């Protein structure tokens, strides 16, 4: 993994950072690289309320806000920004205004690497809208001055259309932090984590690969 000046991670939901990126975040932080996580919403529309339910539609944002802080602490993120948009509405926001918010982060932080979702390959409408906004913001920077833009893609057509991921980070060294970050999002991950115990016990190879290898596609610029 290259040593970065500053990493800017931009996702719409608390827990988006946990599954595919938290190991990379932790590795960068252990490397002495500052990481800023800009999280657009509080995942207000999440369908998981705990089972049996310990949250309601109305208490969920407060719970997820704390879970986000806990996950950031587990990873050592010192700069966590919450943008206050609402879950499932990101694509309906004014595009230019959203681009402006992202451009302002880039201007302020001067990151060498930005991580977000790959537009067209990230399934959830909020993921798509976030990825598009980041691409618009970075596109406005002259090609030779642009930070690297590494994207997460997981739609069913991503391998067929984007090819194999160009970047695969082995995060085994920080997997405890990654698992702690995933568990911090308890309202959303508790039932999933409960199914892990057996797989971890038997060192299930698919499971270990899913946790230990984080995959990124550098954004393919048209110009």
């Amino acid at each position, binding site marked *: 993994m290259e040593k970065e000046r500053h990493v800017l991670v931009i996702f719409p939901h608390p827990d988006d950072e946990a599954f595919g990126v938290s190991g990379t975040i932790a590795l960068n932080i252990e490397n002495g690289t500052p990481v800023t996580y800009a999280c657009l919403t509080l995942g207000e529309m999440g*369908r998981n*309320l705990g089972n049996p*339910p310990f949250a309601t*539609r109305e208490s969920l944002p407060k719970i997820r806000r704390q879970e986000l802080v806990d996950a950031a602490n587990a990873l050592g993120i010192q700069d966590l920004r919450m943008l206050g948009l609402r879950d499932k509405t990101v694509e309906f926001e004014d595009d230019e205004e959203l681009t402006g918010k992202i451009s302002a982060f880039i201007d302020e932080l001067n990151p060498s690497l930005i991580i977000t979702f790959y537009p067209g390959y990230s399934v959830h409408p909020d993921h798509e809208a976030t990825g598009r906004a980041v691409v618009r913001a970075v596109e406005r920077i002259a090609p030779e001055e642009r930070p690297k833009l590494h994207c997460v893609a997981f739609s069913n057509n991503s391998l067929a259309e984007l090819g194999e991921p160009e970047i695969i980070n082995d995060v085994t060294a920080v997997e405890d932090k990654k698992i702690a970050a995933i568990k911090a999002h308890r309202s959303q991950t508790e039932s999933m984590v409960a199914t892990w115990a057996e797989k971890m016990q038997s060192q299930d190879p698919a499971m270990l690969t899913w946790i230990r290898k984080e995959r990124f596609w550098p954004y393919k610029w048209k110009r």
Partner: protein
Amino acid sequence: MKAIDRAEVQQKINSFAEADVYLHLETTNGAYATHNDESFFSAGAYIRNALIRYEHGKIVGDGPFRVGLKLEIGWVYGEGLTHFEIDDQGRLLLAGLDFTGKLAVALQISPSPFE
């Protein structure tokens, strides 16, 4: 939230009748439904802080329950409701949780706007 107590919910619905109240109504099968099963047709709707006034409302069924609110010139309706809570702000929060505990429908009534 706990399993719906029909009498308690009916009483709360009655208490909001003929008054200006704020409505949150939502149905969802999740943003990943079609990703997980490409033959699944995903649909949902969501309205938050609609200001309404209903003449009367009813909760019907043996569980999951249905709730209908009769407006002067229209209706509000939700089905698949399983759980409820009357929260510390006096709001009636009704939700339908599917067999895995995930929210599929929400119908909430509040005397003041939802945040």
